[in-house]
């Protein structure tokens, strides 16, 4: 392999965010005209890696990175995405960066429009040159031809099916004159099967033109069919850099999740000391859809047993966070949700709360807490608003806050959950992430809920605090018999905590498994390689 045939080379790349290493000593090379599949679980470091390559500002703002990136023979030190674009790196993001009210042509040539001069522009400068629409249409048509898709150059993007929008994005990148490498982040996630095939064929064509491609996908079958080589990231480390020849989907899933057997052991142990889960179904969700930006839920049905901890996992963007936000009325939703035989009306947080449901939001600082208020206020707020607790009546009529009861309650939870603070009057914004999370839990516990929903309970908190939070959840479940629905991106955490785990893929439940199930199985469920098609009952 000659040195001048290499498009991208990473040597010893590492990255830390606040002393937490996200990437450690990443090395790999990508040849010209090669397609590389990049796979890894949530938080494996894929996004961070792409941000480094693309010169995103966040990287420099958080102290830069270690190691070196070489692009097309030169050391790459991009300080902004614009630099990377100029050097010839094109990126297609997961979320569309298209302007819906523009036609396909206008979008493809956005800010790269072909213009021709006129009298006025000669006086007032280039920005007043008129657009050369025929020439622009020609360029767009050429890009479509390269991709092998048959799309109109004058259609409004807002009126196109989602799958076609993806092609517009890619057409935009390959229309750039000096593009040498493309990064495609989950481009097939929104495509139908036949559209995905067209895209894969197009990728091969682009690669034949000498353009290298980094292809990020959770659909492992696509990786094996289209890529020349595969790089698997796990916990910030490249675990495999290999040719895809002869590699099976099952093997990739194994590399992706393959934890040490200790996790399996913990899961098994957890299973033995299982809480008081009954046999009847207390909570039922049927054909739920939720319109939450970036976390769309299409059609989800599941049942939760009384007293169990039911986990929902899946990759980011597949809708696992949409489920709780839809049930609690925070995002527009439809379908049937019933608790204890009574239907919970959707799109109304108060009726969900009145129905005995409590929610610990993944958006701790935005939805979960009143940051500028003291701890006791935060803990008692929902209970006061929803259930009228912590109120006393002046002259038997006017209800006012019962500060004493609030303080007592707050002190109780501070002790129980070992919240580190100066006292119940400390402002919540002064606490660390882990302690804030405990306040969120306490706030939910104060409602004495019969059903508790926790979303991403350990997001952004350190390892020690994580265990405490999970332990608090398990204890609450055992001691009060509260049924818990827990949503988390971390499979390991779900396996440690839950009695059953559902995996969501592309807005639908791919399957429900016991926590001691082989990790590879979960990996395959997440990537949609396995899908239980019968409505789950067990």
């Amino acid at each position, binding site marked *: 392999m000659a040195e001048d045939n290499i498009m991208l080379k990473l040597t010893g790349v590492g990255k830390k965010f606040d002393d937490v290493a996200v990437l450690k000593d990443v090395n790999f090379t990508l040849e010209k005209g090669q397609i590389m599949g990049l796979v890894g679980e949530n938080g494996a470091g894929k996004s961070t890696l792409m941000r480094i390559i693309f010169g995103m500002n966040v990287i420099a703002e958080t102290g830069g990175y270690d190691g070196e990136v070489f692009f097309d023979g030169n050391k790459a030190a991009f300080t902004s995405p614009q630099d990377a674009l100029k050097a010839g790196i094109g990126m297609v993001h997961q979320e569309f960066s298209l302007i*819906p009210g523009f036609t396909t042509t206008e979008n493809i040539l956005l800010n790269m*429009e072909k*213009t021709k001069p006129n009298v006025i522009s000669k006086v007032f400068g280039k920005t007043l040159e*008129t657009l050369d629409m025929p020439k622009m249409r020609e360029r767009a048509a050429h890009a479509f031809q390269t991709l092998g898709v048959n799309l109109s150059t004058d259609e409004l993007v807002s009126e196109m099916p989602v799958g076609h929008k993806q092609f517009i994005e890619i057409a935009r990148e390959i229309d750039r004159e000096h593009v040498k490498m493309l990064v495609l982040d989950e481009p097939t996630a929104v495509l139908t099967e036949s559209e995905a095939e067209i895209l894969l064929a197009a990728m091969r064509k682009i690669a034949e033109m000498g353009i290298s491609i980094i292809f990020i996908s959770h659909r492992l079958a696509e990786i094996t069919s289209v890529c020349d080589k595969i790089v698997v990231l796990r916990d910030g480390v490249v675990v495999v850099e290999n040719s895809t020849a002869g590699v099976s989907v099952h093997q990739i899933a194994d590399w992706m999740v393959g934890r040490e057997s200790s996790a399996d052991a913990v899961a098994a142990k957890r299973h033995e000391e299982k809480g008081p889960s009954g046999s009847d179904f207390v909570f039922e969700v049927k054909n739920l859809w939720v319109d939450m930006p970036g976390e769309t839920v299409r059609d989800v049905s599941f049942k939760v047993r009384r007293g169990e901890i039911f986990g929902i996992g899946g990759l980011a963007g597949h809708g696992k966070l949409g489920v709780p936000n839809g049930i609690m009325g925070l995002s527009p939703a439809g379908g049937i949700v019933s608790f204890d035989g009574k239907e919970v009306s959707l799109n109304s947080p108060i009726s969900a709360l009145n129905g005995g449901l409590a929610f610990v939001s993944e958006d701790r600082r935005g939805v979960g807490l009143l940051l500028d208020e003291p701890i006791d206020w935060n803990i008692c707020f929902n209970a006061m608003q929803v259930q009228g607790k912590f109120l006393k009546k002046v002259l038997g009529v006017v209800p006012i806050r019962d500060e004493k009861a609030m303080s007592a309650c707050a002190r109780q939870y501070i002790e129980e959950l070992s919240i580190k603070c100066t006292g119940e009057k400390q402002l919540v914004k002064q606490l660390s992430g882990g302690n804030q999370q405990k306040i969120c839990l306490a706030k939910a516990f104060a409602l004495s809920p019969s059903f508790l929903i926790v979303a991403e309970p350990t997001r952004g908190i350190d390892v020690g605090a994580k265990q405490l939070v999970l332990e608090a959840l398990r204890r609450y479940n055992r001691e009060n018999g509260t049924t818990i629905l827990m949503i988390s991106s971390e499979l390991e955490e779900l396996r440690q905590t839950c009695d059953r785990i559902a995996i969501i893929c592309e807005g639908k439940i791919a399957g429900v498994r016991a926590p001691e199930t082989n990790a590879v199985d979960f990996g395959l469920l997440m990537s949609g390689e396995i899908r239980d098609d019968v409505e789950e009952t067990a």
Partner: protein
Amino acid sequence: MNKRMRYILVNSAVPLLFILISAVAIPISNFSGMYLLSEIITRLTRNSFMVLSLLLPVMAGMGINFGLILGAMAGQIGLIFVTEWGILGAGGLTVAAIVGTPIAILFGWFAGNVLNRAKGREMITSMIFGLFMSGIYQFFLLYLCGSIIPFSRPNLILSRGYGVRNAIDLEVMGGFDNLLKVWVNGIAFPVGTFIIIGVLCVFTWWFRKTKLGQNMRAVGLDLDVSGSSGIPVEKTRMQAVIISTVLSCYGQIIYLQNVGSLNTYNGADQAALFAAAALLVGGATVSRATVVNGIVGTALFHLNFIVMPVAGKNLTGQAMLGEYFRMFVSYGIVTTALILHAWSRKKNTDSARAERK
């Protein structure tokens, strides 16, 4: 087909509503067709330039630029100075425009800076900023003119010795209107003014096809996407506001040369409101407005303006209702149009959601 029809109906709900109201009110008012036609022509001459000056900020996604009273004030300052200098006719108006332009650019630059710090709240911000700048304008005319800035004509200055009078007769009256006046069947067509308005229409249409116009459309449709594709978002918005302010300066000059007298201290106050109402009546929304919306809206809105008070008088027998009807109708239109806009947007997201499922 059915869906397309509904889309058109939803989008032209406001003009249809107004045509309906006019259809009921015209017979009650007893006005003759000829009279209404000549009135509408007068109103088009007066107001359409001002209405059209609102188009670019809408295109750039900044909603209705209520800050165009800044431009109107600049135009008024220009007119006061040409009256002081005694320049007459179309030449006087041109000089007023030349004096007003740099002031309008400066005001527009101020407004653009403020609005770039208030993304998503441009309409209310521009309204309040306009009221604030109105205070500075009044300070300038009340205390600086005639004291620091010498004025030679006593009929412009208050009897106390400084400060501009609150009503001024404009000697440049009809400067553009009389350039090429054509009489047809007893109705006067001020062709000179119409040519100026026509030039603005052509300019606006042409501008959409330029690179800068394309940038403005992109910025108006999606700030983040435009920004990430390298379009200078803030600069583009600034340019939209400045052009709009300068155009509204010319708009106010055209308006006042037709009216003939200047209400110095609150002549500009309602300019933005009436222009906005007219544009919205024409079927524009705060996110989409065309030249046709502007012209149709001006005609329809002023038709109602003429007809409604008289119709109201004929119905109730009270003559006092005129001004009340004007204010009620125009604020009502803006409110209705804003509510209808929110409603049609909700309809669109609902149908988009239904499609995705």
